[in-house]
């Protein structure tokens, strides 16, 4: 369809072409710029909130912490949620990019491929049957549910003669998501107490997570990020189609399996830490494609930096938009990100999968 777009409308599409062909130094400069933007957002996340502190005070708190200073304590209390935002944002965006590459489908994301649905069902069952409460109670449920769902999706898609083709992956994921959502619904309509606990978990939030949650999920997230960031080259050859990839000497089944493993670890840990946040993994890779083109060796690191930017930006806005309360980050990501995303999609010629 990319070919067709430029063939039908040579005018606006053509000037984009040479610019899109990425020259390494320029892209590297963009990467550094993105990292600086991310740093700015991290500092903003420490500064802004229900009780805002000055930039100077915040820097003091970071460099020379004084336990008796109330403002310093406020900054300290915002550190865990900033760290979680960083980790979860990077994990979701990277997982989304890798999934879209593996499934070769612009709609692929942890939500649509059944991983969030698995986590949700496990959490609902945990609340309903075992009376779990609070983030640290949900974490292992979410992890187990996400992992099981992903393994089932991949196993079902791999059965049959051709192995895990993109269409089978997408269909199996969405079908499993539909089935699991039905089961979740069945519990929710029959138990109001479960609904009451679940409705606050399912929007996704960064607040109320302490260092214990970070300590539990961080190792998984680091391993998953390392694994996923290393798959750029593999995804590039998979993007050419299974046959070409095979011709280039790629072991297609192994490549898909390893990437999928990274995705499962990332999604499971991210959902365990912050609840099901759907929008980031879906949209950040598309935004990144508009900036750096279709090369996964660039898409993955850019996603890892831009995911936290969106998540932290949404979290900061959510703290101030409806005082005195907070709007959860899972809601704000969509409200902040989607208009920007739609504007980008309208404006530019798309780099396609």
């Amino acid at each position, binding site marked *: *369809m990319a070919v067709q777009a430029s063939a039908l409308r040579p005018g606006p599409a053509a000037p984009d072409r040479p610019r899109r062909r990425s020259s390494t130094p320029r892209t590297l400069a963009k990467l550094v710029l993105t990292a600086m933007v991310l740093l700015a957002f991290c500092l903003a996340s420490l500064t802004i909130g229900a009780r805002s502190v000055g930039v100077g005070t915040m820097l003091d708190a970071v460099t020379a912490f004084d336990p008796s200073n109330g403002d310093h304590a406020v900054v300290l209390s915002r550190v865990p949620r900033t760290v979680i935002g960083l980790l979860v944002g990077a994990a979701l965006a990277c997982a989304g990019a890798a999934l879209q590459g593996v499934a070769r489908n612009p709609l692929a994301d942890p939500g649509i491929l059944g991983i969030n649905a698995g986590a949700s069902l496990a959490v609902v069952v945990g609340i309903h049957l075992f009376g779990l409460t609070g983030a640290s109670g949900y974490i292992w449920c979410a992890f187990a549910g996400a992992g099981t769902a992903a393994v089932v999706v991949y196993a079902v898609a791999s059965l049959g003669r051709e192995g895990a083709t993109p269409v089978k992956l997408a269909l199996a994921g969405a079908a499993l998501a539909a089935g699991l959502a039905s089961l979740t619904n069945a519990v929710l309509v029959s138990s109001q107490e479960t609904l009451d606990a679940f409705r606050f978990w399912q929007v996704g939030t960064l607040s109320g997570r302490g260092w214990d949650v970070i300590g539990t999920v961080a190792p998984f997230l680091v391993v998953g990020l390392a694994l996923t960031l290393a798959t750029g080259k593999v995804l590039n050859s998979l993007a050419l189609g299974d046959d070409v990839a095979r011709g280039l000497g790629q072991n297609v089944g192994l490549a898909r399996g390893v990437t999928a493993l990274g995705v499962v670890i990332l999604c499971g840990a991210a959902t365990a830490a912050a609840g099901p946040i759907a929008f980031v993994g879906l949209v950040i890779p598309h935004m990144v494609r508009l900036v750096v083109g279709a090369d996964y060796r660039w898409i993955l690191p850019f996603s890892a930096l831009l995911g936290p930017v969106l998540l932290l930006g949404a979290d900061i806005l959510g703290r101030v938009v409806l005082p005195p309360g907070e709007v959860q980050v899972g809601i704000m990501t969509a409200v902040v990100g989607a208009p920007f995303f739609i504007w980008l999609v309208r404006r530019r010629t798309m780099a396609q999968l």
Partner: protein
Amino acid sequence: MSASLTGARPAPRLPVRPATALAAVRVRRRRSTGTRLAAAGAVVVVLFAVNVLLGSYTVTVPDFFRILAGADIPGASFIVLENKLPRAVIGVLIGVAFGIAGSVFQTMLRNPLASPDIIGISYGASASAVTAIVLFGAAGAAVSLSALAGALAVAAAIYLVSRRGGVAGYRLILVGIGFAAVLHALVSFLITRTDLRTASEAVLWLGGSLNSSSWDRATVLALALVVLLPAAAVLSRSLQGLELGDDAAAGLGVRVEASRLGLLSTAVALAAVATAAAGPVASVAFLSGPIARRLLGNRPSLAMAALVGAVIVLAADFAAANLVPGISLPVGVVTGALGAPFLLWLLATANRSGQGG
């Protein structure tokens, strides 16, 4: 993306005289398609009868015909005429509507995930209806109307926003998921901000239910389908062209932009009226198309998708009412749990090359 998503059909092996061999293959295919459609139709009829006759209140077949003929059997007449029959009729109609709507979207946008319940249109209905329930305390017909208005408004917005010279399918999908994300966030937000009773009412509606079926509702729905189904049948010809890609379709003489608009409007209207009648019954639109395609050996067919949709809704409604003794679940709670394993099984057992896509 495109080539991989449509899935290559297995090339027929050509013997010595290709022309006659091809003709034979074609005839055989047409016949087997007809047989399978008839079989699916028979399943719909059987399930319809099961829904009307069996369940918590059993009616014998002779009694059923006597009631239809106008005899008044105390108790049975009321239950059959005012409850079971309209419910089953609405079940069939929304199954058909969701099946066709989903299949049109999936085929036209050449992506099996691009059904109206995933790219934002059902979310439009949901957001509008939940807003009506939570903020204005609406119930019954008011919720249906706001769902209808929401679906149509969001579909129009998606179409207009993704229009730039012409609507490319890819852009339509991406704009759709953008809208879906915002609307989904809105629904979650409203559910966390209201009291528990209203929240569970909203969750109940979001699942989709046939509980409020009545003849009024069935009549409105049937009238809408009388207009929309022939339109879908007429437009399905250009759908076959669009499935090959915009360029190929234009080369085949399809007026791409016009037929896309026609197909979109028809599919959106089908999904919208069905949602208004019973809520966004989960997953029927998404599941029917891929299941129908695999039942017919990897060929898309709107008729088959319609029948599969009806089968899913009828079977799910029967299971929801009778599976757990004493509890009558809404139909949307079961549709996914019933349709999804079947699609997974079809995917897992696809052993002919090309069937998996």
